[in-house]
């Protein structure tokens, strides 16, 4: 009998991460697209770091930071009662960092590619930057938003190294599908590894296919 918990956990993690990332990334991408601060490149670099860093490096530092033996981890533990090491909450925080560029980059690119006159026109019409963002800018970069959402979701599903470093392999807590595949292969349980892998393969294929179809204009008649 297959244990479906790892798959369920994977999608729960991906869904929560994507939702939180959307809330974080829209303001961040907005700032990156329009700010003229001199230290903007530093922020841009930091956002992109998860693209190039080995996940183990990110996981290692998060492990150190979240550990109750160190200042930040101890502070979290004392004041918020949060233990981010070897817990689902910890995985969420790590995934947020790990998938951040996949959400921020498409939105930032979408905003930068809009003609500047759209934003200026809204301002001249007396609209605040917030109204302009929600009524003019975001509705006109729907494909970029969709790309960001799907890439962040799919990338979180594909996460392995970071999870292994700070989550470990606790069933029902941190044992996501990618870990479960590794675990099954380690114990020579190939049929179980195959089932998890096949489900992940099929689902991510469908998700990405939907994005490419959508950005290729195949759904224009339903979602203009």
């Amino acid at each position: 009998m297959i244990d479906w918990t790892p798959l369920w956990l994977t999608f729960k993690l991906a869904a929560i991460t994507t939702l939180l990332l959307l809330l974080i990334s829209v303001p961040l991408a907005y700032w990156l697209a329009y700010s003229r601060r001199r230290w903007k490149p530093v922020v841009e670099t930091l956002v992109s770091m998860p693209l190039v860093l080995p996940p183990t490096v990110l996981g290692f530092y998060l492990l150190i930071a979240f550990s109750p033996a160190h200042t930040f981890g101890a502070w979290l533990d004392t004041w918020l009662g949060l233990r981010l090491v070897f817990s689902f909450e910890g995985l969420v925080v790590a995934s947020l960092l790990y998938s951040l560029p996949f959400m921020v980059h498409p939105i930032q690119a979408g905003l930068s590619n809009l003609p500047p006159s759209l934003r200026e026109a809204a301002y001249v019409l007396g609209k605040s930057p917030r109204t302009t963002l929600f009524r003019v800018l975001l509705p006109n970069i729907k494909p970029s938003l969709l790309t960001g959402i799907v890439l962040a979701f799919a990338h979180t599903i594909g996460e392995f190294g970071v999870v292994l470093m700070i989550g470990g392999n606790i069933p029902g807590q941190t044992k996501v599908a990618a870990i479960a595949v590794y675990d099954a292969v380690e114990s020579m349980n190939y049929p179980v590894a195959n089932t998890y892998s096949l489900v992940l393969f099929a689902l991510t294929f469908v998700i990405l296919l939907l994005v490419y179809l959508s950005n290729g204009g195949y759904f224009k008649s339903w979602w203009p």
Partner: protein
Amino acid sequence: MMDIFVEKTLRAPGGELTLRVKEHLPAHQLVGLFGKSGAGKTSLLRTLAGLLQPEAGKIVVDGATWLDTAAGINRPPQERQVGLVFQDYALFPNMTVRENLAFALARGQDPRIVTDLVELCELGNLQHQRPTHLSGGQQQRVALARALVQRPRLLLLDEPLSALDLEMRQKLQQYLLRVHREYQLTTILISHDPAELCQLADTVWVLADGKIIARERPLVYFATPPPAVPWQLKGKIVTLVPQQNGALVVMQLGDEQVQVWANPALAATFTPGEWVDIHLEAQHIQLKKTDHQP
């Protein structure tokens, strides 16, 4: 009524350019802003709208100070009551024509003006279409209507008609005039087209290298020929050929010999071998490629 003083260094393709404009604009005037590309026309409009920050400036419109760098006042575009029609129209692609106009309503404003403007600009048949499905002239009308929703004190038009064909342009010129009068607007219009300015503008401001070098009624400005170009050449007198009433002065100019007629009094003062200054006041000088190289 409006008093403008603006000073701003612009980065132009050919180096830096200082925009320095100090003008008074009476109410309900339609001013045409004329000048070469890169003279600073669009920058001036953007400064008035608050989209560009000048280094120094003071803009007072009907007693309200929009900008006063000395006093640290700088109202954002949202608080300037300006209607601006962009060169690319800047219609919101995610909204229909009517939604574009309705979006422009101020909080608590009577929405009936949207219907009025739809009528005035003859947008009835188009009001539920998205801007991307409209022709240039239609988009231009939508942009104009949208700029008027909040009943601006100042209407700024950045080459609104330049992308349109002649017929559409003439039709929209009539719209502009009608709207300008009906809404009692004070309007500044950028245009490269003297005919258009003669038809629409009360006054033309001619902008060159960031300064306004002329303010004239358009018919006066465009009908006056450009000032004569003074030329000065030096020639050496070769010989004087006496004529019935004067003399032909034959001069060497570089490799060429040139003959100019001189009256007897003048001719008497010349001797061959002497240098003379040749002044020309040319109204029309035409340069043509020569058929034979010397």
